[in-house]
């Protein structure tokens, strides 16, 4: 190692370990470390330095302008929705803030690049792994301490100690049980807001009557219970199509009324509302993952990652001509889960 490198290493404050492996010999052409030392920016002539100083200072002044502009906008600009010029409030705040930050940042970088020394310094790396004697020493201390603690010598102590720790871990489990209402888990999963005789209410809470829907029309309907409008599992789409295009299987013959059919809108894939209905093809489309269901054929899956048909709600018309549910769904609505049965019979609950 040449003296100049050693000097520079000293200047870096790093300990220079003569025993540390330094392999400058890897480079066959002379001593390449010599050639990497150069400092150029510091040698700017006075005029250039002055110019650089002015450029940096102007950027810093721009930053000041940004801050002043920000404060002025914050205080004086119309900031209430609907007021004239309101739409420029946020862009101006962001713009001035950006000016303050970018001015300061660009100024600092220019400062470092023009007026500070751009030297290349060499520093040795220390060997990361410890010396053998340290390794052995550490191992010996651990071994000695462990022997002193005596976990190996006193088996009853060891087992009871492990048991006590394990027990402490179990102590956390009841807290987990406190996090959810698990008691009626499966009953809750299987039940929705629909019940026998519940009218089909539209989004404004009005009951839907036979004849309200034209052929090709659809309507979101909700159960006639408190909070039914916002129940996460009870939204249903009532669809009317020509009775001759509607194919209903034998066991569900009584679940439809004159071309009106009602499906749960909760996707059987991941629970998004399946409400995009295409009149011509009778397709129901889920906007989340593009599962497509055939509303004219029991909402069976035509495309996409959903595996099951949308559950169908059995409906009928009451004495006054209003649609009512014959009961709750015959199967849990929405996505699949482990406890879900493989098959559900077509009987109204």
């Amino acid at each position, binding site marked *: 190692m040449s003296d100049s490198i050693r000097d520079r290493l000293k200047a870096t404050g790093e300990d220079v370990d003569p025993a540390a492996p330094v392999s400058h010999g890897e480079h066959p052409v002379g001593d390449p470390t010599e050639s990497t030392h150069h400092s150029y920016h510091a040698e700017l002539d006075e005029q250039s330095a002055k110019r650089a100083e002015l450029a940096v200072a102007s950027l810093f002044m721009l930053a000041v302008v940004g801050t002043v502009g920000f404060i002025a906008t914050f205080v004086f600009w119309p900031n209430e929705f609907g007021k004239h010029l309101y739409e420029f409030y946020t862009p101006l705040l962001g713009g001035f803030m950006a000016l303050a930050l970018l001015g300061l940042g660009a100024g600092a970088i220019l400062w470092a690049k023009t007026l500070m020394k751009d030297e290349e310094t060499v520093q040795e790396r220390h060997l990361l792994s410890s010396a053998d004697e340290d390794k052995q020493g550490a191992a010996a201390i651990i071994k000695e301490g462990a022997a002193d603690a005596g976990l190996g010598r006193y088996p009853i102590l060891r087992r009871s100690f492990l048991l006590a720790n394990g027990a402490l871990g179990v102590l956390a489990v009841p807290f987990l049980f406190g996090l959810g209402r698990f008691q009626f888990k499966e009953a809750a999963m299987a039940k929705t807001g629909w019940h026998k005789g519940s009218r089909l209410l539209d989004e404004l809470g009005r009951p839907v009557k036979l004849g309200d829907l034209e052929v090709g029309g659809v309507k979101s309907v909700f159960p006639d219970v408190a909070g039914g409008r916002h129940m996460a599992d009870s939204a249903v789409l009532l669809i009317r199509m020509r009775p001759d295009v509607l194919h209903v299987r034998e066991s569900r013959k009584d679940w439809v009324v004159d071309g009106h059919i009602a499906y749960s809108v909760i996707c059987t894939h991941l629970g998004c509302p399946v409400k995009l209905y295409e009149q011509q093809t009778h397709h129901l489309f889920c*906007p989340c993952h593009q599962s497509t269901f055939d509303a004219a054929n029991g909402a069976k899956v035509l495309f996409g990652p959903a595996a099951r048909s949308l559950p169908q709600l059995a409906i009928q018309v009451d004495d006054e001509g209003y649609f009512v549910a014959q009961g709750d769904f015959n199967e849990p609505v929405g996505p699949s*889960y482990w406890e879900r049965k493989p098959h559900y019979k077509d009987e109204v609950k």
Partner: protein
Amino acid sequence: MASFGEKAAAGTGTWVDDRLGSANFVRRSLNKVFPDHWSFMLGEVALYSFIMLLLTGTYLSLFFEGSSKEVLYDGSYTPLKGIPMTAAYASTLDISFDVRGGLVMRQMHHWAALLFMAAIVVHLARVFFTGAFRKPRELNWVMGVGLFVLGLVEGFAGYSLPDDLLSGTGLRIAYSIALSTPVVGTWAAFLVFGGEYPGGHIIERLYPIHILLVPGIILAIISVHMGLVWYQKHTQFASPGRTEHNVVGSRFFPAMMTKMAGFNMMVFGVIALLGGLAQINPIWLYGPYDPSQVSAGSQPDWYIGFLDGSTRLMPNWEVRALGHTLSPNVIVPTQLLPGVIFTLLALYPFLEAKLTGDKGYHNILDRPRDKPVRTAIGTMCITFYVVLLIAGGNDIIASIFHLSINEITYTLRTALFVLPPLVYLLTKRICLSLQHADDDLLHHGIESGTIRRLPSGEFVEETLPLPPQYAVLLETTPERKELVAHNAHRLEGSPLAVEAKPKGFFRPRGGKDGQKELES
């Protein structure tokens, strides 16, 4: 004579040192040498974005109410006046319309989050392709992967808090994914949400997770991540004078520190510009969450996009037997796939070391071409990821280009399995070709411009070996080193060693200054 300022500084320094013995640490730290390269700044972008997230997030938390309690909106955004909604959504509207400067802070927070994740991904790619994860830096790689995963969780939690129509839809999907877990699915979903969806607790639970728990863990890991970079010293690219046993670069103080602080402000500035000028997540247009509503073209933030894509591409496989239902159509793309991806990613340094038998320390970075298999694995994985990301926007693509969504999905399904191996082969081929080009350069050298006529009448151009400052970049094998050493003497007295100005990659370090140094 020392000025007043100098005396005051010296006095303070002595006061602190008498109590903490800090002078030794300060001396070593300020003199710490860092190698310079533009690609080393990518990780910095992630760091500065995170700091911006902490700053803007603290401001937002002063106004946000993490509660699903129902309120009637009474703020200044007139279209939603009198509408029942959760306090979370109402307070987000207040931040957007009634808190001065609230909207710019909210948008900066969201943009900073997107930038944070983007910077992590690009930084990860840099570390991967240059082999910076090799011994002794495997632990830092694992921590980086951990930060990536935590960033996903943190981002999703934050995205869900405003309780608008879009975020509610995302939460419902998250609930359904938890539900699909074999055996314990309903338990897990009920545990997180407090009961059957919506459960009534999720906003209240996500809020402390988003503003305290996860950012706390991220902050702790970032500190160790950077501490290790400091302690183990940064890697460097090959260049004359750089060896496995030294660091060549500039000292931390003052130029490096000033440049980093300046860059920090630049990143902040870009986030402020985006937050001010580029609208993001206008929740007032989506409306409050309603479980029976959804808007077409629902899209998550970009970093969740690959999981959305995998979910869209998955065939509808479901097993219903023995009294139970199992949903590979949900489990495979949303649980298994990310699990496998991130596990393999975290283990990569160990797998590579095992398969190559390389147990040595590495402080000099690889050029991607010199490690064709690794580089090919990297581009293969990126291809897989990008196909998933595109699939996450298949509905948008279908509507913009008037294509059939079904055909796009079938095409992407095929591409997911066909493209990555093709890209692997292609990348490997390209790397090997580039290596051959390097070999040619080492063997035949650079054209000297001197034409010689042989006795036979034939004209040949004389070539000279590569000057050392370029040759060092190519000395990746013992054979090449030998070749360079063998040819070195031919350079003596050659004008080439001084004047050669190869283009592109072979630009000498230090640009114009390298030139100056050689002349002197």
